[in-house]
């Protein structure tokens, strides 16, 4: 048995970032992780998916290379190569976390942990041994979440014809046909990837629009772009007569008042994730859960049991890597006795990396209406932006919603090339309570896509220049 100040259960973006910061603040730290370090983000989510999306983007660029005067010979797309590269990028990143652990003297205990009393964990290692480790200052549950199928819709995952993103990331080839059920960020990203690699994709969601959590204008713009690329989008959809076969899945989809029969090689279920709360001894320790099944925590990441903390996906939505990482940092400061600044959960950016990219922060226009806020909207299309024209990526726009009286940035929504990078200007602005005027006053270099952000801010004041 060894003794640490802090033990994290789970080495994903919440746990590993929290662990490193704890070590930097002088605490002795261990992370129990059964897989490689990095969690869903590095191994089965953000990173490998983005590697595939880059492949998809390149495939789409190459298709238009001729317009730029670049003649390429015969172009062939091989998903297995893209997949292998994606795995290599993923494992590189995981090794990067290992390196950071060594550098900061964070101990990685390989195995499966279970809470044992209020300040210890029992770890079952790969070779079946059990060892007990003590945490003097805090035990941190950072076990993350996992994909769950849609058994209620008849779509139990079978890993061959009904798969989750986990399997999609390691497919050897792109199937000829695929239905993606769930048109949130994950669904839209995979629709983008498989479409680029030649799969006939049908994107299905029960919600009336795709990316239902985003501003309705962005959802509509993305649906338009997807349709242009022959991705079939069926929203407000109901599934029935699902028949799962060995090499295909048949189902009936009702959408827009029309019923149609659909037969695809693979159904990718991209709806919903469940927190990993089982088999870690939460119940025995008396840790309370929320009614949605997440671990209940306060703003100091404390659970209902003193000395046990929770961060990341397992501690509640939004289930985003960057939210988990920030919670890890805050927790480290709490444990080290430093003054810490609470997390502003209203200011967490959302990012979807399909093409065009979609990114947002703050309230959508729908939400502003529901809250009966007095607001003004500024908008600037990339088709009027010089830099977007040079690269031929003129889809999309920047939309900024501001408070009518004081100019507070209530929400910002960007759809277009590099939207996920551009959103951070507005994240910084909102965190510091800059208004649309400060955004405009900051001089933006020309020609850049970021000029569209400044123009949208100006447009909200009725002073747009380039449109």
């Amino acid at each position, binding site marked *: 048995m060894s003794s640490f*100040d802090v033990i994290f259960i789970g080495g994903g973006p919440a746990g590993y970032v929290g662990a490193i910061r704890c070590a930097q*603040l*002088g*605490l*002795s730290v261990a992370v129990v992780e059964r897989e490689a370090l990095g969690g869903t983000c590095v191994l089965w989510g953000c990173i490998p998916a983005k590697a595939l999306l880059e492949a998809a983007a390149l495939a789409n660029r190459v298709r238009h290379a001729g317009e730029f005067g670049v003649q390429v010979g015969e172009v062939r797309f091989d998903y297995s190569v893209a997949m292998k590269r994606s795995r290599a990028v993923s494992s590189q990143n995981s090794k990067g976390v290992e390196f950071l652990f060594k550098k900061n003297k964070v101990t990685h205990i390989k195995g499966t942990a279970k809470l044992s009393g209020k300040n210890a964990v029992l770890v079952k290692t790969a070779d079946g041994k059990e060892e007990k480790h003590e945490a*003097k200052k805090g035990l941190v549950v950072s076990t993350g979440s996992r994909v769950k199928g849609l058994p209620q819709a008849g779509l139990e995952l079978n890993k061959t014809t009904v798969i989750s993103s986990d399997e999609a990331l390691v497919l050897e080839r792109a199937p000829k046909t695929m239905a993606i059920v769930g048109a949130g960020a994950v669904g839209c990203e995979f629709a983008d990837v498989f479409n680029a690699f030649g799969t006939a994709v049908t994107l299905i969601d029960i919600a009336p629009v795709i990316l239902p959590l985003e501003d309705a204008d962005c959802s509509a713009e993305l649906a338009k772009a997807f349709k242009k690329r022959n991705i079939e989008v069926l929203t407000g959809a109901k599934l029935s007569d699902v028949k799962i076969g060995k090499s295909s899945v048949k189902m009936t989809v009702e959408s827009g008042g029309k019923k149609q029969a659909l037969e695809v090689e693979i159904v990718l279920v991209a709806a919903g994730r469940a927190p990993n709360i089982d088999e870690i001894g939460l119940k025995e320790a008396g840790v309370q859960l929320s009614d949605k099944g997440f671990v209940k925590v306060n703003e100091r990441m404390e659970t209902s049991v003193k000395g046990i903390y929770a961060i990341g996906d397992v501690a509640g939505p939004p289930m985003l890597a960057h939210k988990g990482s920030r919670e890890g940092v805050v927790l480290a400061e709490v444990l*080290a*006795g*430093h*003054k810490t*600044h609470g997390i502003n959960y209203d200011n967490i950016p959302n990012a979807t990396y399909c093409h065009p990219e979609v990114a947002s922060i703050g309230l959508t226009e729908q939400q502003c209406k529901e809250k009966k806020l007095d607001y003004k909207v500024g908008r600037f299309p990339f088709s009027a932006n010089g830099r977007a024209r040079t690269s031929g990526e003129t889809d999309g726009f920047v939309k900024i919603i501001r408070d009518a*009286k*004081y*100019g*507070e940035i209530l929400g910002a929504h960007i759809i277009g090339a590099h939207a996920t990078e551009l959103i951070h200007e507005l994240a910084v602005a909102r965190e*510091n*309570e*800059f*208004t649309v*005027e*400060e955004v405009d*006053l900051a001089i933006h270099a020309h020609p850049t896509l970021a000029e569209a952000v400044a123009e949208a801010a100006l447009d909200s004041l009725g002073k747009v220049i380039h449109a």
Partner: protein
Amino acid sequence: MATKVVMEALSPTMEEGRLVKWNKNEGDAVKSGESLAEVETDKAIMELVARGDGVLRKRLINEGDTAPVGQLIAVIGAADENIDALAGGGAAAPQAPAAAQEVEPGAAEQLPQEGAAPASPAPPAQERPRDARTSVPDDAAQSQGEASTPPQERDRTGAERTSTGSQGATLAIGSSEPGDRVRSSPLARKLASERGVELGTVQGSGPGGRIVKKDIEEAATRPKGAPAPAAAQGAPAPVAARRISAEGDYQDIPLTQIRKTIARRLAESIGPVPTFYLTAELDVERVAEMRDSMIELGAEYKVSFNDIVLKAVATALQQHPEVNAHWLGDKMRYFNRVHIGMAVAVEDGLITPVIFDADTKGLADISRESRELAKRARDRKLKPDEYTGATFSVSNLGMFGIEHFTAIINPPEAAILAVGGVEERVVAVDGAPAVRKRMNVTLSCDHRVIDGATGAKFLQTLRRLIENPLMLVY
């Protein structure tokens, strides 16, 4: 690599700490987790532990000195490591806090307005908190040379300049000297100018004490000139009597951290909290009978009147969440759980340890806990989480022979119950005079949360429980 030892926030409301005793000498080997020093916070004496291994190379403040949270107070390093850069940077540090403690208006007003204490407009900057950076010489020099400092230099400190907010919102400085800087967000400045809030009168809650939107919104709902209510919890009501010295005409007594906190918070409370008082005389004949019959069963069943009062209050609060409440500036918070703060007199003040979930505890638990907490309070051994988190407080001065008194609300709590002593009085019972044991209670209510009838209903419930203590087992 050398490890900086800084004054840590050892309690949720701590802004500065007084170094009571160094537990390590310069040159001693220290290990991470070992106690370096004892520090008096605003509430208790706590240990400051090392956050790194090595040798305690340099102590930068002396025993008895006060340092703001975040200030460098020592350096841990390898025995042969050159720490001049670190230790040098803090060498001048003891000066600053010493000056601050003596309340030197001139010096204090040079400092940026930061931290968590309220900045009241009336008395100028003396009580104004400072953050760690204010004692760093280079920053201090900068404040001194404000007028001649080039703008780029000023930006390095992160301070807001009036010109950044060019939307017409002027940077109001309030009662501060011209050299003082008020950190605020552009949105906060706009809101402030529109709503007529002077930035200098607002306490910032953003990073480094920056004034943000929420602070202005809170300030705008307060009557003009009223100081900000503190968000944190602290010591409430009555102040213990001070000894008068026989030597000379007077004796100056330095302010301890707890005394400073009491002074600051009581002043806050009597000012902005619109308080009214409800008094009731309760018949405690049955409580006395119950207590006596419990004692007859054995000394181990002995409980105090106050224990029974606490139990009754907890039970009543459970039925009256509108009294078991906090005023939070932009909202009221009714609590479902009942955590009773119990005022305990200590040598140089008072503190309110908390009996958590008192409504779910039996008399035995309440009695044992209140005894233990009171003892630990007197020994100054309470941990921060033992004296924060109360939803309602009770103060009992019966043991001092007080019949009736009013207690001052401990913000953000919305009420406090003052309990007087039990005494025999002649009262009319069924039309004939009779001698009964009686006890006065007075509920101080924050009218922003509790209305007269609401408070009265709570006291009705309390009366039913105290006068019929069997209801406590119902």
